[in-house]
């Protein structure tokens, strides 16, 4: 896996080489700090812990600060990347340069919360007829059978909290890698709010 922690800035449009307007998401990738390397011998698996985002040392809790040791600056966000493919050691910095020859990425983030939603929005139920005396509009309908089994089965689709889930969007085309502004442009949308934290990785498919 080749992945970094990044920040969603927002969306805009750019012209591609044919002059077609393409919707893009602007993703800011500042330098990621390699905080720790975990190895199969010591931890049972291989991974790299990356840190992102500036934070004042005085704002950190001591147990969290302890992970960074004395030689590394503290970072606001930490994420573990399993089976990291790039050569690196603790204290290294990983920047946007790793995306220079990559043409598609996956983006993982927490989607926007939608609150308590009904089944039509949450599970794409069709709903009932609006007119002609129908009294069944946006309800979910039956949730099970009668005296047998005398209960509602687990995982029946009903109304409830929607959004704020971890969402992965695969195979987003990289439109441009701007090393000067440390900005990555990907075609299409990306889950989460603006200024939200994303994981951007090289496509696995």
């Amino acid at each position, binding site marked *: 896996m080749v992945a970094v922690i990044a920040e969603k800035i927002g969306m805009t449009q750019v012209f591609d080489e044919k*002059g077609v307007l393409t919707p893009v998401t602007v993703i800011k990738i500042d330098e990621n700090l390699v905080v720790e390397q975990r190895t199969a011998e010591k931890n049972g698996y291989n991974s790299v812990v990356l840190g992102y985002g500036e934070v004042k040392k005085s704002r950190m809790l001591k147990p969290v600060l302890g992970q960074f040791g004395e030689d590394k600056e503290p970072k606001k966000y930490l994420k573990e990347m399993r089976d990291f493919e790039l050569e690196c050691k603790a204290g290294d910095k990983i920047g946007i340069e790793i995306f220079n020859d990559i043409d598609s990425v996956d983006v993982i983030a927490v989607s926007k919360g939608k609150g308590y939603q009904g089944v039509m929005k949450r599970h794409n139920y069709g709903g009932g007829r609006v007119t002609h005396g129908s009294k069944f509009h946006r309800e979910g309908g039956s949730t099970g059978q009668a005296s047998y089994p005398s209960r509602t089965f687990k995982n029946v689709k009903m109304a409830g909290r929607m959004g704020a889930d971890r969402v992965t969007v695969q195979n987003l085309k990289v439109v441009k890698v701007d090393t000067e*502004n440390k*900005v990555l442009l990907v075609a299409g949308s990306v889950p989460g709010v603006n200024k939200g934290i994303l994981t951007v990785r090289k496509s696995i498919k």
Partner: protein
Amino acid sequence: MDLIKAVESAHLKENTENFSIGDTVKVFFKIIEGTTERVQVFEGVCIAKNNTGVRKTFTIRKLSYGVGVERVFPFHSPRIQKIELVRPGRIRRAKLYYLRDRIGKAAKVKELIKRKS
């Protein structure tokens, strides 16, 4: 927001706005068909300008064989070779959608004549 503006700035054309709403203009638009490239001219009245930044567009309306045709062009599109001003128009509003309901001479925009002072 500054980063978004920085991204957009690379695609913006400079000083291309040589016409205003109500003007009759010729738009030289490049059309790419497979490998060949040709320039098509679309001549008509600019009836609206919309949006800002890289998304800025303008609408050109013309009559072709008695049928009204409207086309929306992205302002900063690299496929617009040039825009030629044919005839400035005298108008009193920013969106000339009322032209759609008018037929014949009533659908005309009066020419703007600037007096020398």
